[in-house]
């Protein structure tokens, strides 16, 4: 297996080296990535979308379909993980006594070191503020909905590791959990239909100057939905894979 893997790696590496030898020089202002549609986005992006962060402009306005389906993909992943029967509910078939014993040992919760406990507890509010700042300042600094979702999700996972998953599960209101998990796709669909009503194009954003406030509101709603929905999905994915309750 090792020899086969090494041979495969060598063949793939040689192919890719030949490929990168034919690429335009890295960082060249006249390269194709900087001259076609990318150049137009940079010139017209702010005027056409009203967004100062052009990555967000590309993500939500120019390539909104990509992002819509991306939110659907991660939601589908959560559905798939939750649809599997809980792996931890039935104990694995023990093939011999020692294997079963070692498994019982690892199943016992490892006590959290006081250092980790304190650090996570101290840092959690700051992590939450950082996530909100990344969301709120996302139009003028690097950041936005997905980044914020990743930070909040990581905070919830850290809290779940330290305080136990029951405690962390309480961060998400039980009645609203199903709605929050589907928040991204749902809000995207609503915004897309609103855009359809206003502009005649699915996921269209009103482009005229007078509708600036409305356009901004639609983008903010999308960003918040991505952040909250994404964070809940990430935390749920982890909890679904976590050790037995």
């Amino acid at each position, binding site marked *: 297996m090792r020899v*086969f893997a090494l041979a495969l790696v060598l063949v793939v590496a040689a192919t890719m080296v030949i490929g990168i030898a034919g*690429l335009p020089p*890295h960082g060249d202002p006249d390269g194709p990535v900087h001259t076609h549609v990318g150049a137009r986005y940079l010139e017209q992006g702010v005027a056409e979308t009203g967004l100062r962060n*052009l*990555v967000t402009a590309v993500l939500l306005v120019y*390539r909104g379909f990509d992002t819509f389906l991306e939110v659907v993909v991660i939601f589908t992943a959560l559905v798939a993980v939750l649809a*599997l029967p809980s792996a*931890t509910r039935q104990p694995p078939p023990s093939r011999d006594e020692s294997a079963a014993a070692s498994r019982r040992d690892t199943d016992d919760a490892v006590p959290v070191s006081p250092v980790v406990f304190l650090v996570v507890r101290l840092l959690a509010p700051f992590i939450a503020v950082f996530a909100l700042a990344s969301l709120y300042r996302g139009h*003028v600094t690097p950041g936005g909905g997905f980044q914020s979702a990743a930070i909040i999700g990581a905070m919830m996972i850290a809290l779940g590791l330290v305080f136990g998953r029951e405690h962390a599960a309480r961060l998400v209101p039980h009645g609203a959990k199903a709605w929050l998990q589907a928040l991204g796709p749902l809000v995207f669909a609503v915004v897309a239909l609103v855009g359809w009503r206003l502009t005649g194009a699915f996921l269209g954003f009103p482009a005229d100057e007078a509708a600036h406030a409305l356009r901004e509101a639609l983008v903010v709603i999308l960003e918040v939905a991505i952040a909250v929905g994404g964070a809940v999905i*990430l935390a749920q994915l982890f909890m679904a894979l976590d050790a037995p309750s």
Partner: protein
Amino acid sequence: MTLVGLDLDYVACVVLFCVGLYMLVAKSNLIKKVLGLNVMETAVFAFIVTSGMIDGGQEPIVVAGSAPPYTSPIPHAMVLTGIVVAVSVTAVALALIAQIHAHYGTIEVDELKELP
């Protein structure tokens, strides 16, 4: 910076990709295979983002005090999409591995092959 005519940034991506590919093919532990897949994905993301860079460029955020040239925003947006897909794939793969472990008590491919 170049190495025998090749951009070093691209060479780094190729090396990282090959490390991931080797892990994916040579390792028999399913978790290590997923780790290898993630290393390969990281290499691809690094490659795409690198291709959008420009000499002396700034991040594509048009505010007071920023000036062209800006790096291309399209690779960034594409990679953001790719990362979410990678997370989804990893989550489903890990859930399936947990199922395999629950049913067979092992996640080594060579042990799984010997099972009746």
